[in-house]
């Protein structure tokens, strides 16, 4: 079984293979297709209209499928590569090995936020911002500036304790596990991490920063933890909900996969 590991536990070779595969997807243009897809759903998903990738029950299965597709693209370069996850409750400072030069590179410099170290630094020429919301063409970060603290394990546990998956009106105003992990309600988990990283991660084009995948991999792991804690709580809603992906509805943009198909991650990978 393919295993997704904590990024803190990766070997030097695993880090290099991951980074090299990401850079190769970028070079061939395939990486930017993922950014475009994400940006399109960020713009298209609305609280009172059709919503699939965000602010809706399918936030979790949609990103699970999106990450699987990205992981498969990485494996087309190097078959052994798996997505790592970033447990931001544990590795919660800019001094984490996550931000070292042999992996994702460091914080942005003061002034313009430009990342100047690591494989994705502008100076290397390997990481242009082709899909962007403003004129700046360099990767930016501002770790811990937009919000001081990453979520704590206690805050994660509060959200994992919620027994109901999601609730009407199935959007950013909902109660339940999904909206609390997404962050529009409650202690704010997923959304807050985007803001903490800063730079492109705060925008609709957030996959411009490779940490996007490690962040969402941890969100995906937390969904798996929640399922184990609440085996009797299933995905909701289960049918006839306008604008919302029900349990057995297919999801755009793939149109051949439903939330029901994605509930069991062990069909695809396990978590270490």
């Amino acid at each position, binding site marked *: 079984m393919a295993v997704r590991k904590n990024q803190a536990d990766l070997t030097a070779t695993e880090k290099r293979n991951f980074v090299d595969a990401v850079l190769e997807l970028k070079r061939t243009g395939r990486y930017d297709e993922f950014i*475009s897809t994400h940006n399109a759903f960020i713009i298209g998903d609305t609280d009172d209209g059709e919503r699939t990738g965000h602010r809706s029950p399918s936030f979790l299965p949609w990103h699970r499928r999106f990450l699987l597709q990205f992981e498969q693209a990485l494996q087309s370069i190097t078959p052994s590569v798996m997505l790592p996850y970033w447990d931001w409750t544990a590795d919660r400072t800019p001094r984490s090995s996550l931000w070292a030069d042999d992996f994702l590179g460091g914080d942005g410099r003061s002034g313009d936020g430009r990342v100047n170290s690591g494989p994705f630094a502008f100076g290397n020429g390997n990481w242009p911002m082709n899909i962007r919301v403003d004129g700046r063409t360099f990767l930016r970060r501002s770790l811990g500036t937009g919000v001081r603290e990453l979520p704590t394990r206690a805050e994660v546990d509060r959200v994992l304790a919620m027994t109901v998956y999601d609730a009407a009106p199935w959007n950013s105003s909902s109660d339940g596990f999904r909206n609390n992990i997404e962050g529009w309600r409650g202690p704010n988990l997923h959304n807050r991490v985007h803001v903490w990283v800063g730079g492109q991660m705060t925008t609709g084009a957030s996959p411009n920063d490779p940490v996007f995948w490690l962040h969402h991999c941890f969100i995906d792991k937390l969904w798996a933890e929640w399922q184990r804690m609440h085996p009797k709580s299933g995905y909701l809603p289960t049918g006839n909900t306008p604008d919302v992906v029900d349990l057995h509805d297919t999801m755009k943009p793939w149109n051949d996969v439903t939330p029901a198909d994605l509930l069991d991650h062990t069909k695809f990978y396990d978590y270490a």
Partner: protein
Amino acid sequence: MSHPTRRQVLHGSAAALAGAALAAPVAFADTATARPADGHRRLAGHGHSGGHEMPEPFDEMYQGRHIEGWPADEGGSENGGHGDHHAGPASPHEGMDFVVRIDNDDLHVMRNADGTWISLVNHYETFTTPRALARAAVRELQGADLVPVVTG
């Protein structure tokens, strides 16, 4: 730019709408901060107004940038017409309730069910008004220009 007529027309109608709102019994008590409406009222709301009062137009210089915003037309008669210098695959105002511009470039914004707002530049944090959102975008942009939305 020698063809700003569309924006001026829109802005004029937005001002007229604001005047009507001010004359209505439920007018904004504080014109500087259009309050998000009581969340429960969304249950009675319909259409894309969502039951919330539309914030007022604004037009100001903020940290050297010209920021402005106004309610988008309800009827969609201006469909695809705004910002013709932004011809592209995605109309930047599609499905939008409120138009926000920074130095005449469109900033995609969206209203949440609770009446708060987000923009494409700050997509994971909420703001109480489009003006606050525009100011946050100016701080984030650090002088950079917005570019037309690309959605593939």
